Structure formats: C-alpha cells, structure tokens
C-alpha cells in the first residue's frame, strides 16, 4: 500500500453530465414523476477522464474554453458530484476556483481572511498565527481593515491568493487566478509556488491559458479537448499538441467584415497568410532567436506603382512591436492581380509568450492603409535556453516590463 500513500488525487473514469431543462415547468414535471419521466436534454461536460497525481507534482491543465477544465477542478474539489466514475483525494484542498469566492464585500479584509480560515477548519488561534504572513504576502497596507467591496481588483486578487496559499494545503487548486495582478505580484506568486514545490509535499493543480506560466511551473500537463483527456505528458509535448489544436493554425484567411479590420480596400485586399519555420514547415511555435517565414497573399484591384505592404508583429495587448515593411527593402509597386510574397525575418528577439501577426497594404507612401488587420495569426515564442548561439536563461522570469530582448554579454573589467 505504500505506493498508494504518495497519491494525492486519483481520478477514475470521471464523467459529468448536466440535465438541461427547457423551462422551469419541465423541472417540476421531472420532480413530480420522481425522476422517472424524461423532460430534459443531457449535456456532457466531461467524459471518462482518468489520471493520478502524486504528492509534490505540479500539474497543469490546458484546453480551450468549454473543454471541461473548470468542471474537472470542481469535481476534484467535491463541489460537483460525478455522474459516473470517482475522485479520491488525500489531504486538505485549498481551491482558488474564483478569486475571492466566499469573500463578502461588506466585511473587511481581515474579517474575510479569518472567515476563510474558519472554512478551512482552522481555529481562531491558528489563524492569529497565520494572519501576519497572509497580510504581509498580500501587501495591501491598511486596506486590510477596509471592506473588501472598496478594493481594487488587484488588491482583491492579492488578498485572495495570499489567504489561499498560506493555509498549507496538501493540494492547491488554482483556476486562472494568476492572470490578474501586476507583474511583480505574479512574479511573487511564482516564487511562492516554486517554494511550495521545493518542499515537495503538496500537489499543485493549475488551470491556465498562460502557456508560459504552465511551462515554467508544471512538471506535467494534461490537455482536455472536447471534454476528453487527450494528452497527459511533459509540458513541452502537451503544449505543442495544444498549440496545434488551438486554431494556432499556421494558415489563415483575413476575415471578411471583422470589426478590427481597417481600410476601404479600394486598391487592394489582403487575402491570407501562413507562417513557417526556416525549413518551410508550417509552424506556430518558435524559440527565441528563431527566424520566422511568412507568406502573404493579396490582390491588387488595379496597378499600384507606389504600392507597399508590411507584416506586423504585436503582443497580446495590441502593442505593435515591429513592422516588417516592404518599403524598407525597396519592394514597391505591384501590377494588378494576385501577389504572394515570402518574408523571412531576422532572429525574433521577443520574450516568451504569445504574439500576433498581421498585415497592411497601402497604395502609396504616407496615406492611410487601404487594408489592415493586426491579428490574423497567433504564434507562440518559447524559451529555448539560448538565443542564437548565446546562452540565455529566462526560466521563472516574466519579462513583461520590457518588450524586446537585445542579446548582450557581460564581462567584468
């Protein structure tokens, strides 16, 4: 039985179906027939999922919206009851399923933290011992004695996160909670999670769309797709699989009538774009320092002797990081008809994360774009351990305070 002892969570054939009633009347009919009638449709949120998580493991769960991630966490926490299958949990769970769930806005931060402690089964004295750690971690100053309702969302997150991780849980479940909060607080959480990992006695379960954080923290990643568990592997493998699934497709057409698409398209219309690695294989993941090959097609409705175009590279906040403009390379002027260009970039010196590629075209220099769309494709830049031939170590660092990485060397003189 000793092998059973280090299992923190054991999930077997877990399935969850919801009954969907078309109207409240149907629900009453169902109740009155003591469940024998059938006045509802069924919706399966999770289908036949099995896995074990050992103590000390940090497991990420990734998947598209609606793939069953949150349902899985709720089942593990015992909030939902499985329709079939079983969940076995060894130890005390602390769950951050929704930030500050259970916080009452009318009460002060202090009162809410104590209440949270009561929920976790701590006595007042035990909470007194923990409170200073919690308030120090949250670092919200004298707001701790103000009603939570007046907190900024940042303060709210900090307090909720601080109280959840300071209860020494055996199992820590976090659903998208790291996404809020400023970068220094995120870094602090990362450090704290890593220190929990080092102690090696708690299991951490993390749902996130932030693949960089997942890659940084997790020892193993589960991928859910269409309510199934489709991949249970090391982070690199799961993430790359997910990237492929995540309509991080390597080819896309410029969407017609998209609200963010600008320009009258009087002289030219952008058509589609594909992205490849230097071996001309379709790809959406690039290590820092890799070159990206982009193919862009557009139609000129008439001859454009001074026409020019560009490919844009921007971050998830929409900040334009670079513009690969054809004019810079002297590619100016196009005949009427369809054109396809292949653009090979230099080494990409952006930090690990998600970026958007887009394009624009104009009929001459200095006029507004005739067609422009900034996010036709998404790519993922990861930390390959080196940039070009130089060693570079970004693990554990979220470098959102600068946009671009410039390689450099340090010598002591």
């Amino acid at each position, binding site marked *: 039985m000793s092998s059973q002892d280090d299992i923190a969570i054991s999930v077997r054939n877990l399935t969850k179906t919801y009954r969907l009633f078309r109207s*409240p009347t149907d*629900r009453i009919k169902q109740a009155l027939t003591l469940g024998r009638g059938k006045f509802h449709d069924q919706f399966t949120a999770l289908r036949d999922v099995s896995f074990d998580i050992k103590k000390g493991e940090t497991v990420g769960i990734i998947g598209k919206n609606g793939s069953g991630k949150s349902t899985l966490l709720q089942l593990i926490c015992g909030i939902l009851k499985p329709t079939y299958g079983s969940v076995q949990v060894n130890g005390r769970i602390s*769950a951050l*399923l929704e930030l500050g*769930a*259970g916080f009452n806005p009318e009460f002060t931060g202090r009162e809410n933290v104590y209440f949270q402690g*009561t929920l976790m089964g701590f006595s007042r004295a035990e909470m007194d011992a923990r409170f200073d750690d919690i308030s120090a971690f949250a670092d919200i100053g004298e707001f701790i004695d103000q009603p939570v309702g007046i907190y900024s969302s940042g303060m709210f997150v900090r307090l909720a996160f601080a109280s959840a991780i300071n209860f020494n849980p055996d199992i820590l479940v976090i659903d998208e909670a790291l996404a809020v909060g400023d970068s220094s607080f995120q870094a602090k959480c990362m450090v704290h999670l890593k220190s929990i990992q080092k102690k090696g006695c708690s299991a951490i379960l993390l749902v996130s769309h932030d693949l960089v954080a997942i890659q940084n923290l997790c020892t193993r990643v589960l991928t859910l797709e269409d309510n199934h568990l489709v991949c249970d592997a090391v982070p690199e493998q799961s993430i790359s699989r997910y990237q492929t699934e995540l309509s991080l497709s390597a080819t896309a057409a410029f969407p017609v009538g998209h609200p963010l698409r600008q320009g009258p398209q009087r002289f030219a219309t952008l058509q589609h774009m594909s992205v490849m690695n230097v071996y001309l294989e379709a790809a959406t993941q690039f290590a820092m320092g890799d070159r990206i090959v982009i193919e862009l097609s557009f139609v000129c409705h008439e001859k454009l002797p001074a026409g020019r175009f560009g490919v844009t590279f921007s971050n998830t906040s929409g900040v334009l990081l670079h513009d690969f403009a054809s004019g810079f390379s002297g590619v100016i002027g196009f005949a009427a008809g369809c054109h396809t260009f292949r653009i090979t970039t230099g080494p990409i010196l952006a930090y690990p994360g998600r970026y958007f590629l887009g394009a624009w075209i104009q009929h001459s220099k200095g006029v507004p774009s005739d067609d422009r769309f900034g996010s036709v494709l998404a790519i993922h830049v990861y930390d390959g351990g080196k940039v070009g031939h130089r060693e570079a170590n970004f693990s554990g660092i979220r470098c959102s305070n600068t946009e671009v990485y410039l390689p450099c060397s340090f010598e002591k003189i």
Partner: protein
Amino acid sequence: MLSTLKTFYQNRGLLLELVKRDVLLRYRGAWLGLVWVLLNPLIMLGVYSYAFGYLFQLRGAGSGGLPYVLNLYCGLIAFNIFGETVSRAPTAVRSFPSYVKKIVFPVNILPIVPLGSSLLHAAFNLLILAAALAWTGHLSAGILLYPLFLIPIILFALGLGWFFAAWGVFIRDVAQVVPVLVQISLFLSPILYPSSIIPAPLRPISDLNPLAAAIEAQRAAILGTPVAWNDWMLSCLLGVLVALLGLLFFEHSRDEFADVM
C-alpha cells in the same frame, strides 16, 4: 444521516460565524447598530399596546388576567422564530452561489443560519417580555421553561427550512409562495387568539397544527397554569420527523445545486 449530523457538529464554529455575519450584516453601517436588536421589538410592543390594549381595549379570553398584548407578544416571539426561518429559507442557499459553486462548503448548514439569527432576536424579545411581565406583576418562574417549548418550533422551522431551501434553488416561485404560507400559518395558529375560542367541530383539525401545542404550552407556563405535556411531547416527535424529512430531502437534492445555480 448520522454522518450528516456529525458534519453539523464539526462545522459548529463555521455556523456560529455565519450567524454572527448574518446579524452583523443586517445592522452594519446603521448609526444605532446593534441597538436595533432591542429597539425593534420595543417599538412593536409599543404599537401593539396602543392598538390592542388602548384602542381595542382587548382583554384576552382565558388569559388569566394577563394583558392581551403580552399574551400576543408571547405567541409572536415563538412564531417569529418559525416565520423568519421559513420565509428566508428559499433564498438561504440560492443567495450564496459562490458557496455552492466555487468553494468547498457544507451547504446544508446554510438553512440553519436564519434560525440562528431569529433565535438571537427571540432572546432579546424574551428579555423584553420578562421585563414587561415583571412590570405588570405577572412574572413567574414558568418563563424559565420557555426555551423548552421552543424545541418543537425549532424542529419544524428547520425541517421546512431545509425543504424550502432546496426547492428555492430549483424553482424561484418558492420565494413568493412561502411568505404567504407563513402568513396563513400565523392566522391559523393560536397567536392572536387562544385556542379555546376555536369552535368544537374544528378542534380536531386545529389540534393537528404542530405550532399550536407549543404555543399553548408556552402560555400555560408563563401564566402558571398546567402545561399539556402530552401535546408538547407529540409535537416534539412530529417536529423530529419533519426535521429529518426536510434534511433528507435537502441531502437528496443538494448534489444538483451546483448544476443549476
């Protein structure tokens, strides 16, 4: 069922905290704060005295010289425990979706919270009643038995509380229906009148009212007249039955709460 009762015991600290929050939240921010706990029943007693004692000049039949107002007040204290718990039941669980869906929480203690705060209010009411009885020279040791007579009422309130709390999650209409039912039960119970005025042919039906025996017993205790212990025992047993059925229904349906909220 036993394990459910055990979780109630394990979560007593949490329950106490929730009741405290419930009471504090009601008065938080009010200038007079917790003074209202005492002020509210005092004002009500004043209004009853004016309307029934001064305007109507009512002297309750069979009340042994006890002013009608105090007679009424005595019944109302007990009834309010029932009324407050039951009428708040439909929203007791429904108004805390995050407890049901987002955190690990023993939801079956939520319907007990209104009972807790109504008991606290009742305690203050009882103090005022005792003072008023002393003032009019009717105070007897019988009032010490009062809490004993609350047992069947508490059990009923809990049973119906669990029942309506579960229904309230699934069907919103319950929140509309229950206050009406509570109002009806106020008039069908011997609170505004002693049960002795109910015509004999209706007696067997009115005796079925589980609240009646408890309320009559309270009156008897306060007046110092013999208490109908048999009736009280019977309503206690009935109360246990209702409470268990209510809890059973709640436990049966709680698995689906998170699905529908």
